[in-house]
Structure formats: structure tokens, C-alpha cells
């Protein structure tokens, strides 16, 4: 059966990316409910929103944005409060005061390792939940190894991969590909290599993109691509 690939550029500490993941999931469900028959494969790609973030920052996300980045504290609080409300409407319990702000480079390396074992989806979910809901530190190798074990990956392999950075090039290639697309913010979704969706759009937008990609396939008789 033909497969529609959905490529998502995302960062693990991006609050809209977790929200967008829920909306994409509902979009896929809606596509099915509306008769969409093609298999949908979601592939996550790395995007580093703030590569200069230190591994350890002594303070909350609000502190980091206000003190380290110079954003007005009242704007930061408004942003976090309102995003928390939107997340709650999607069934997500964001806990920004507990979140431990950190660099996400290592987490992205683990996502590539997970992809090599067909466990990327569960790993994405585990990292989002760990950061936004559980206050776990997703910048440290030991914590990442434990989280990876939660989704069935070998923690020893995670430690080794983070020590020799065997997936660092893959992370940078995702970043370069995002640049080639002109992506400056996330989440950013590409459906079937041709339809771009910027931001955490409503589920219906994802469903429509999948339906459009399906009808494109049906319009091309045969002799097309295979995978």
C-alpha cells in the first residue's frame, strides 16, 4: 500500500511542537474518519531553536527567557500562561515552573538513534512529556538513557551514542534541510514532500493536506514512484 510521509521539524523544548503533535494526530484520525485509506508515516526532524542554551541553567524557563535573553518578564509570563492554557485544551499538563531549561542537541541525537530502531515516535512523545509535564532534565546523558529505556531502547547504546556523537551529523543535516526549505520556526510540517504547514495548525489543516496528497496520488495512474 502507498504511504504518505509526513516530515515534521520540531524542537523538544518548543511548546507549540507538542501541541502541534496532538493536532497532527487528530488530523490523521480525521483523515481516516473521512475515508482516507493511505498509510501515514510521520518522521520527526531536528530543529535547534536556541543552540546557545547551556546544558545547565539555574532557574526556570521564565528566568531564562527574562534574564538570559532579556525578554520582558511580563511578556514571558503571559506567553507561558497562555500556551499552558492551549496545551490544557489538547490534554497536555504543561508545568513550566518545573521545566529544566537546557540545550536539546543530545536529545535530538537520541531521536535519531530511536529512528534507527523504529522507536522515534514513542521517543518524541517521551521527551516532550519529560520536559513539559514531568520537569525531567533532557540535556543529561544519564537522564536521556533512562527515558530511552522507557521506550524500549538500550540505555548503554544511548550512552555510547552520546559519548561519540554518532548521530550529530544527522542532526545537522536536518537543520540544513530546514534551512533549505526556508524554515525559521517550528513546528513545520511537510506532507508528501510537497505541502508545507507552518506552525501548530488546526487538525483540519493536516487532514486536508493528507486528503490532497491522497487525491494527487489517485490522479497519477501508475508508473510513479515506489518507495
Amino acid at each position: 500500500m502507498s504511504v504518505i510521509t509526513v516530515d515534521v521539524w520540531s524542537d523538544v523544548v518548543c511548546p507549540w511542537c507538542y501541541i502541534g503533535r496532538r493536532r497532527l494526530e487528530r488530523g490523521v484520525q480525521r483523515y481516516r474518519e473521512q475515508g482516507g485509506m493511505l498509510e501515514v508515516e510521520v518522521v520527526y526532524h531536528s530543529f535547534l531553536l536556541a543552540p546557545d542554551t547551556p546544558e545547565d541553567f539555574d532557574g526556570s524557563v521564565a528566568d531564562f527567557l527574562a534574564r538570559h535573553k532579556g525578554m520582558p518578564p511580563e511578556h514571558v509570563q503571559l506567553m507561558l500562561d497562555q500556551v499552558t492554557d492551549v496545551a490544557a485544551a489538547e490534554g497536555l499538563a504543561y508545568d513550566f515552573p518545573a521545566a529544566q531549561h537546557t540545550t536539546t542537541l543530545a536529545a535530538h541525537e537520541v531521536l535519531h538513534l530511536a529512528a534507527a530502531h523504529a522507536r522515534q515516535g514513542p521517543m518524541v512523545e517521551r521527551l516532550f512529556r519529560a520536559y513539559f509535564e514531568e520537569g525531567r532534565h533532557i540535556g543529561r546523558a544519564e537522564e536521556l538513557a533512562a527515558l530511552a529505556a522507557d521506550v524500549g531502547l538500550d540505555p548503554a547504546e544511548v550512552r555510547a551514542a552520546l559519548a561519540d556523537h554518532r548521530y550529530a551529523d544527522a542532526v545537522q543535516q536536518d537543520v540544513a534541510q530546514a534551512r533549505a526549505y526556508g524554515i525559521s520556526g517550528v513546528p513545520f510540517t511537510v506532507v508528501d514532500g510537497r505541502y508545507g504547514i507552518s506552525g501548530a495548525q488546526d487538525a483540519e489543516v493536516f487532514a486536508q493536506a493528507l486528503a490532497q496528497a491522497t487525491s494527487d496520488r489517485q490522479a497519477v495512474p501508475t508508473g510513479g514512484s515506489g518507495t
Partner: protein
Amino acid sequence: VSGPTTDAGIATERPISPTTAAGAATPAALPGLPALQMLGGDGPGCVGDACDLPAPEPRER
């Protein structure tokens, strides 16, 4: 760990080979950059450290 709700409707993953993961990221999935047809306008997201504020919109549920 993702539950049945989380991954509902999304295909089971196929492993991306270590060669692909370490070498070229999904080369087959993204040919012909960057001719994308944008759908749905500009949704909320994050650029750098700044994230969009939610638009005042009616909730779906």
C-alpha cells in the same frame, strides 16, 4: 511511553537504517527542495526563544 491514543492512526514505524541516520537524513522523502505549496496560513510556533501568543479563538471542544 506513548499510548494507543497518542499514536492512533499513525503507521507503525520502519527503522531508518543506521547508514541513513548517520549519513543523509531521509533523502528519499524530501526531493526537490524547496518547492512547497503552503497550506493553512501561518500557525502558532516558536522562532528562537520567542513563541507566538495564542490567538483568541474558540476552542474546538
